[in-house]
């Protein structure tokens, strides 16, 4: 793991990490950075263009939205929602998927059969339909959105971890530990987990980006976070019809989603390259 980190020297990977760090920092410092309250409405001030354009207002650098809220502030606060959605979905799905994958791979047998079946079932259930049904059941809220995302993204973790564990099980050091009678959780914790950690990290980076994109999908279908909460996906989706009159409204959240997803993907790619033993010495 540590060595992999040292190997992590691709330029784009570092760029990704830096970009991601920047977004995370903005999310963390949102209250300090935002010029005004992202919830503060002023209907008379609605749909103002950016301050440098004709009709803009000096207090609203990037203009205002349909309810006269400051777009810059909403974009800044929106980074929080994206980070929370990404992190919570990845943590939840990662935990669920990794545990199931580890258990299935390690113990094999009937447990493995059942878990594999579940993985295949989850894989085959169209994401949008499952998310749609879950949000329809529970209503649109941040929490329910995260539940829907977890339910639809644990399978890749489980599938890949299971595969790695099955392969690892036969390797000498794990087999030896099992042979001397170490308790299963010890073997898993001490020998198996560290060896699959890097793979997990790579999947996590991909799933993080996907969670952010999927948030915007659900907003598109009217089932994202409630409209008053500033989220990039929600802003992007609300701005659709304005594509002809105020194209900036749809461009800005779109760009931020793009950059953030890009950053995690670049980071993941760099990590993958660093970890791929065949590419390491070239």
């Amino acid at each position, binding site marked *: 793991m540590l060595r992999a980190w040292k190997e992590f020297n691709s330029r784009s990977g570092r760029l990704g990490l830096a970009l991601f760090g920047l977004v995370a920092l903005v999310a963390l410092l949102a209250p300090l950075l935002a010029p005004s309250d992202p919830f503060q409405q002023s209907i008379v001030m609605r749909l103002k263009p950016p301050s440098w354009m004709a009709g803009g207002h000096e207090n609203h650098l990037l203009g205002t939205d349909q309810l006269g809220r400051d777009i810059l502030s909403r974009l800044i606060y929106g980074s929080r929602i994206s980070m929370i959605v990404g992190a919570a979905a990845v943590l939840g799905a990662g935990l669920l998927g990794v545990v199931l994958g580890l258990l299935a791979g390690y113990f094999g047998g009937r447990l493995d059969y059942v878990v594999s079946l579940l993985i*295949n079932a989850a894989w085959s259930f*169209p994401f949008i339909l499952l998310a749609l049904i879950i949000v329809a059941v529970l209503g649109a809220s941040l929490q329910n959105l995260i539940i829907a995302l977890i339910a639809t993204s644990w399978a890749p973790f489980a599938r890949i971890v299971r595969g790695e564990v099955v392969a690892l099980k036969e390797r000498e050091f794990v087999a030896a530990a099992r042979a001397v009678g170490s308790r299963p959780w010890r073997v898993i914790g001490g020998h198996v987990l560290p060896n699959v950690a890097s793979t997990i990290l790579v999947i996590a980076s991909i799933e993080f980006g996907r969670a952010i994109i999927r948030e915007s*999908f659900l907003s598109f279908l009217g089932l994202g976070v409630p409209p008053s909460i500033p989220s990039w996906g929600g802003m992007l989706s609300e701005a*659709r019809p304005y*594509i002809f009159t105020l194209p900036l409204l749809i461009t800005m959240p779109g760009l931020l989603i793009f950059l953030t997803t890009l950053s995690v993907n670049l980071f993941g790619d760099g990590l993958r390259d660093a970890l791929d033993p065949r590419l390491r010495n070239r």
Partner: protein
Amino acid sequence: MTNYVLQRVVQALIIAVLISVTAFMLLFVAKDPARALAPPDASTAEVELLRQRFGLDRPLPVQYLSWAALAVRGDFGLSLFSRQPVTRILSPRIVATFQLAAFAILLTVLVAVPLGVVAALRRGGAIDLLASIIAVAGQAMPIFWFGLMLIVLFSVNLGWLPVSGRGTFRHLILPGITLAFSVIPLTMRLTRSAMLDVINQDYIRTATAKGLPRTSVIWKHSARNAATPVVLALGMQFGALLGGTVVTETVFAWPGIGELAVSAVTTADLPVVQAIVLFAAMVVVLSNLAADVIVGLVDPRVRY
């Protein structure tokens, strides 16, 4: 191999049951189909009347089993909302979705595979850079955004292609590109890494060392081996593709099942949702299976 396929088919059946039960239960927890059917001002008594009329008051397992008994015979019942046979509603839409998906797959293969191969051969070169830009861009863009941008550019500003609808080949282009864009990145990456694996194999190095021209070696020896993971990837991407149709079909008013899926869930039209979910799941399971079988035929080294 026959044994393996058989085993997979059994698994597919179990998955079908699992998924349809889940969808059925979830929808009943979420929605009240009788209430959704009734006009907004219907009283509870009127809603109850509807519930009885359509048998929605029976215990859930009974409802499920009576649905399943007909479903295995290919009868998916009547849409609650329109009283039309579900199969009649779905069949033209399935054709439309398949047409769109097939075109998207074709585009994917035409773009992703050559790009991935060249990116691997000229690792670090301009094409490799272009490929990775397309790959990350494709993954980082919400496809409805991409689709709308295409409409603004090619339909409204340039007037080259129709905004929406289905009928001629011109109608297929924009939704096809939009949908393909969501699956090109992964396919290209997998092609690239598969090619990298292959060209670094000893026998290829040996062949090149023996003085055989590199390109002919690569095409002769590596294409077939690299095909395996690419076919598998395409098979696995089918699920993502179907998910993508929900958004793509909505934006371009393409008359497929994705567009119908959303309204069926919103109106709690159980038989329609059930049929769509089951259909989508089966497509995914079968396309994975088909990919496995194709790989088995192409690559004799694969053993089950």
